[in-house]
């Protein structure tokens, strides 16, 4: 028995040494981690994002990589759950990634924040949720617009373009919705636009008629709808069922093809705050658009998810170029990023601002014949 166990330990040791040596030889690849919802309710957001991340990595690798080093993606599914996201970030850090792209949902970002302090690996997240960059956490970067810009854009558009003298708000009860509502309240007060009614929707609710009835009672001139997920299409439908005639401005979470399709006729004419106008292709979006058109057909239109995935990889690539082989310098590299023009707009980071995109990148589109058409960019 003893010889057997000695033999076993010997094999273990050998295996350890071999795998260590093998790991060493992989150093000329740059590992970037990805933690996105590939299953569960948010998977319709995560799957296309990971597609575009892979596309971007391939694109960079085919064009010289990062100073000759190839990007190696380590992709993990967070199942739309915060606890899985937390474990993903830990395991990715163990694998020696330079940074992590993700997560997607606001609550997941808040959940992984303490883990980042432990692992010291920076993340670039896709949340609009305002508070994530206000936690004082040096490792959190935003690869999106912040809802503080998005909400202001919605209010400005409602009052200036649509001439509404008051608004009503429907928002979901998660961090995304509640923080946006708080921002809307503050900004509406500043702009002197009264919020005549506001109702909180259950995240994932399948019926919003009760809340709609309450806000329609106040006769708003415009309705701001802030949330994500299937409840948004339910809300659009219920609104039209109950005879709402006020124009609706939806959040970025509403500007999804699946929601528009699901809402059917109720989505016609609805305005949405988003990151791009699918009917227009900017010069920075062209390389991505060309790849996707070749893959999916000439009339393919870029979605938010295509853009943010692509951008996130490029942002990290720039920062890693600066950092070289020193992982601890990636944060510095990110903070030195100025005027980086990518598909979503111009990215600016600084030691005291991890926001990324500004209000100049915010688009408002309108649904016409089931398609999103650009109306105004920049607020």
């Amino acid at each position, binding site marked *: 028995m003893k010889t057997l166990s000695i033999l076993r*330990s010997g094999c*273990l040791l050998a295996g*350890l040494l071999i*795998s260590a040596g093998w790991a060493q030889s992989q150093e000329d690849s740059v590992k970037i981690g990805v933690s996105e919802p*590939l*299953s*569960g309710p948010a*998977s319709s957001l995560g799957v296309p994002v990971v597609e575009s991340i892979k596309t971007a990595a391939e694109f960079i690798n085919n064009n010289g990589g990062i100073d000759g080093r190839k990007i190696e993606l380590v992709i993990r*599914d967070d199942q*739309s*759950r*915060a*606890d899985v996201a*937390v*474990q993903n970030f*830990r*395991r990715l850090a*163990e694998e020696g990634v330079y940074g992590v792209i993700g997560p997607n949902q*606001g*609550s997941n970002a*808040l*959940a992984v*924040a*303490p*883990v980042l302090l*432990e692992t010291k690996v920076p993340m670039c997240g896709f949340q609009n949720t305002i508070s994530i960059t206000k936690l004082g956490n040096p490792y959190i970067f935003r690869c999106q617009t912040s809802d503080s810009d998005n909400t202001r854009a919605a209010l400005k558009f409602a009052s200036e373009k649509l001439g509404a003298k008051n608004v009503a708000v429907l928002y979901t*009860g*998660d*961090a995304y919705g*509640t923080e946006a509502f708080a921002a809307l309240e503050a900004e509406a007060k500043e702009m002197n636009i009264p919020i005549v009614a506001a109702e909180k929707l259950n*995240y994932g609710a399948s019926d919003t008629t009760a809340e709609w009835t309450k806000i329609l009672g106040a006769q708003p001139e415009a309705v701001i709808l802030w949330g994500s997920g299937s409840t948004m299409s339910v809300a659009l439908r219920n609104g039209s069922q109950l005879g709402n005639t006020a124009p609706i401005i939806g959040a970025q979470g509403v500007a999804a093809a699946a929601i528009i399709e699901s809402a059917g006729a109720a989505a016609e004419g609805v305005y949405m705050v988003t990151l791009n106008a699918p009917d227009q292709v900017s010069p920075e979006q062209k390389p991505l658009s060309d790849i996707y058109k070749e893959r999916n057909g000439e009339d393919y239109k870029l979605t938010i998810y295509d853009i943010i995935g692509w951008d996130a990889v490029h942002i990290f690539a720039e920062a890693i170029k600066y950092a070289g082989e020193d992982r601890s310098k990636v944060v510095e590299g990110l903070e030195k990023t100025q005027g980086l023009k990518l598909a979503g707009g111009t990215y600016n980071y600084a030691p005291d601002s991890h926001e990324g995109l500004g209000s100049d990148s915010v688009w408002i589109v309108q649904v016409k014949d089931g398609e999103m058409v650009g109306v105004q960019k920049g607020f």
Partner: protein
Amino acid sequence: MRQFHVLLALLVAWLLAPLAIQTGGTFNLFIFAFINLVLVVGLALLFGYAGQISLGQAGFYGIGAYMAAILSTRMELPPFIGLIAAIIVPAAVGYVIGRPVLRLRGYYLAMVTAALGLILHTIFVEWVDVTGGYSGITGIPALSIGSLTARSPLIMYYLSGAVAFMVMGLALRLVDTAYGRAMRTMRESDMAARACGIPTSKLKAEVFALSAGMSGLAGALYAQYVGFVSPESFTIDASINLLLALAVGGVSSLWGAAFGAFLLTFMPEWFHELQNAYGLVLGAVVVVMLTLEPRGLWGILLRLRALLEKRRQVAPA
């Protein structure tokens, strides 16, 4: 007792296993397997021995986790207190609910516990001031002695493993005592039990409370290890999965519960390529297993043993 010998052998294997385990990922799996074991054994005690079914185990799991979280973060009490509260509070809730409801038939409890689980989930989501709603509670300090902290995979492996072995050992012991025999009598026939003077309502409520307390303990372990709690871990789906795990492992056996817990933890890893389609595998395994052998994996083991016994009998001594 043969079962204790098996337990001992497993104990040794468990102690030595970290020599072979390389990655934090594998430790992670074992830790969750141990946590799940505590949960499923709780269900097994309730179901297999008191004949009652619970679809609300995740709710008690959640109470335990939130208790540990809230007491150590908001109220800044040492993690140990959180651990104790995590056991007591769910147990108390279990007893209070159990007393009146357990008079009813088995599936009534199933639906009441499902309802309870849903209500608890709603509380976790809506009571934002206390639970943080969907954003949950982060930064839960881990139990630590010196530099050994429950956050490290290796330490947690030993901690959760120790708890699992303790729970298993106690449960096996319990079944053999008068208490356990009373429980089994109750399961076979409520009327006969009462005729023997066994206070069935009280006993059932106690088993329910025990099961709930165990779930709470598991919840505290979870909170310690992950350092974050949010409502999404404590949904009705989680409860359903636990019950199905027990069914596949073997409802009427504690060992079946252990099998089930490990399966529940490892199957998603084996099938992680499937992503969303994993549910098909789980459902199919349940349906096929229960249709062929209602006693689950444990039942299959018993059948094998019976087969071997028969072979041995046929062969000359």
